């Protein structure tokens, strides 16, 4: 019997499916329901949990045959690639995730006998892994890097675009921020030094702060030069990262160089005790 396909945001599929233990009776009915639903919706694959059965059973259409995989496991996986996938659960919105092309799997066949299989085709492997994920409480969204998941959830709600998750995009943690972080801390103390002449502070203390300003200023300049070249390197590595674009990098650099120069001039005029 054709069953209702669960679709996002229905979260009732978020359970770990239990193992198939019996291959007669209710199993036959469940398998029939999965195949009927696949035929009705022209699906290439379907897991039991997508129509409400919390069991480790999935069916894949292979050469117009509907092959059941019960209790499937991926034993080895090799050759990663970026796979753009659509599922009925996510209303066929394309989402890019990392998959593996070469798989060695074990599963129970229709009679409950354990079988092994090798897969070495990107499309076939992606279909298998995507359908298998549902059996382990995992959807395409869960395969997206955590820092891009919020954007993906907004996109599914019709607010904005689905994030691009391939390796060519923004790194989760860019090391160029370290340059900026150190520079900002130095700039903060340079700014503080400008306020000191407003208070009754001894000449020797002001001399100390002025010495700090004289050291901090060139360090900020050097850090910003280092930032620019490292950012350029990352921009080449992650070509479509918006925060990696040269305009952004120049902007970040110029703001701090200007601030450092202004603070240095201010320090020369107001902090310098001589």
């Amino acid at each position, binding site marked *: 019997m054709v069953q209702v396909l669960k679709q996002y945001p229905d979260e009732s599929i978020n359970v770990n499916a239990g193992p198939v233990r019996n291959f007669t009776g209710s199993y036959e009915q469940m398998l029939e329901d999965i195949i009927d639903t696949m035929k009705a919706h022209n699906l290439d694959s379907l897991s039991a949990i997508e129509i409400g059965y919390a069991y480790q059973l999935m069916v894949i259409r292979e050469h117009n045959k509907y092959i059941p995989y019960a209790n499937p496991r991926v034993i080895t996986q090799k050759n990663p690639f970026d796979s753009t996938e659509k599922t009925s659960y996510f209303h066929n919105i394309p989402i890019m995730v990392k998959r593996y092309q070469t798989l060695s799997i074990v599963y129970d066949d229709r009679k409950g006998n354990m079988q092994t299989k090798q897969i070495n085709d990107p499309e076939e492997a992606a279909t298998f892994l995507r359908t298998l994920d549902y059996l382990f409480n*995992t959807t395409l969204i869960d395969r997206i890097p955590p820092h891009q*998941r919020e954007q993906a959830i907004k996109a599914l709600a019709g607010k904005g675009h689905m994030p691009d998750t391939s390796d060519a995009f923004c790194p989760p943690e860019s090391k160029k921020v370290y340059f900026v972080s150190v520079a900002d801390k130095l700039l903060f103390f340079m700014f503080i030094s400008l306020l000191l002449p407003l208070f009754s502070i001894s000449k020797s203390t002001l001399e100390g702060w002025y010495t700090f300003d004289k050291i901090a200023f060139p360090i900020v300049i050097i850090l910003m030069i280092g930032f620019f070249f490292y950012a350029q390197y990352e921009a080449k590595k992650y070509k479509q990262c918006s925060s990696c674009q040269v305009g952004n990098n120049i902007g970040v650099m110029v703001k701090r160089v200007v601030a450092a120069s202004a603070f240095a001039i201010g320090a020369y005029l107001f902090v310098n005790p001589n």
Partner: protein
Amino acid sequence: MARLVVMGGGVSGHTAATFAKKWLGDEHEVVVVTPNSQWNWIPSNIWVGVGQMTKEDVVFPLAPVYEKAGIDYRQAKAVSIHPEGKTDSDTPYITIEYTGQGKEGQTEEITYDYLINATGPKLNFDATPGLGDGKGQLGEHTVSVCTADHAMHANLELQKIFEKAKTQKQKILVGTGHGMCTCQGAAFEYIFNIEHEAKKAGVRDNLEIKWISNESFLGDFGMGGLHMKVGGYVVSSKLFAESLFAERDVPWLIGAHVTKVEAGKIEYELLDGSTGEEEFDFAMLIPPFAGVGLKAYDKNGEDMTDKIFAPNGFMKVDADYTAKPYEEWKASDWPRTYQNPDYKNMFACGIAFAPPHLISKPMKSPNGTPINPTPPRTGMPAGIIGKAVAHSICDMIKEGENAHLHEASMAEMGAACVASAGKGAFDGTAAAMTVYPVVPDFEKYPGTGRDTDYTFGEIGLAGHWIKHILHHMFIYKAKLKPGWTLIPE
């Protein structure tokens, strides 16, 4: 006056003995027979294995604790059980062989009215050629964190690897050393603590760290997996574990049965039937568990070990041991009282009782090699079972042998586990997990066999703090310090 003899002084035996003595008082006698002079909080051994704790942090001497409690302590290993006594006496007894107290090697008979078998496991290193030394002990090619001494040795070897990694590439392999191992959690904790310490030592870039396990999927943990809460999202333990390994650049081999260990190399067979080799400079492989090899004799001195013990050496209790296919396994197969069916004054608890079957789905490679985790019976369940058994025996002593027995079925029991992924007051991480019930009940909870509301985990710094607190709390409890009975198992 009745005499209760407890064989074993680990989590389960120590819990049973100390509670029994508290409840029985001085009117009755409690004897503990254990070959160890020290009690070991085993979950913290992984921190000894990376040099973050000393052996002294995880052990304490048993003698003063038992003296304070009024328990008769014999540092000896149990050798045989004689539940029918001997030809000239009906009084049951066990034979022991001393390992300390100045009586090393001496044997003795101890009679009993009630007996608890809490011997724990034999670390069956020799089940995998090369993993053991051929004499039942750890072999020369790998290390272990199963005991405090093993963990100390592991740390010494690990520090050598860290030293070498300052100048050259080194490869570390951690996981299970046989297809039928349990305790994947200890190996899981150890590999991530190594990775954490390697980063702190500045040698991570020169270390290749690899995981090998008999689980059929990452995150099985020998329990069939669970939910994890990570950063506000609910994900499966499979995805959680895969992400954890990928983020820390630790590749994995799963569904693996290690067939042979040599110097710097293992051979393995996978669930898909393929075979392979893996080289290493340092390897920590958990051995499979077996019974400690106790013998049982009848009144005439005839060997009846097969009657009392299952083939794997664990003691038969009130479980349904009838061989049946996976689809017919039931929660009710699991024992409730842990009483031996033939001798009502004998009980087994902790790892020492024979489970009726696996918890995970049984799996075999196409070559017929069984590769799946065996049922975990350590930690919280071991303590709960030990206490329930002590309660039953105390009631039998006080109310007669027909007293109602206390029950602690693993199919009706929840368990909590905290797995460390790195030690540090501010940068530590641990996964805290709860499972209910430990043994899936497919009739009560169709599908997963578990109550999903109570089967979940969460990872973070708080988990590390909890593990650290538990370390101190359980050692405090085991030392029988004031208020020890208030601390749960």
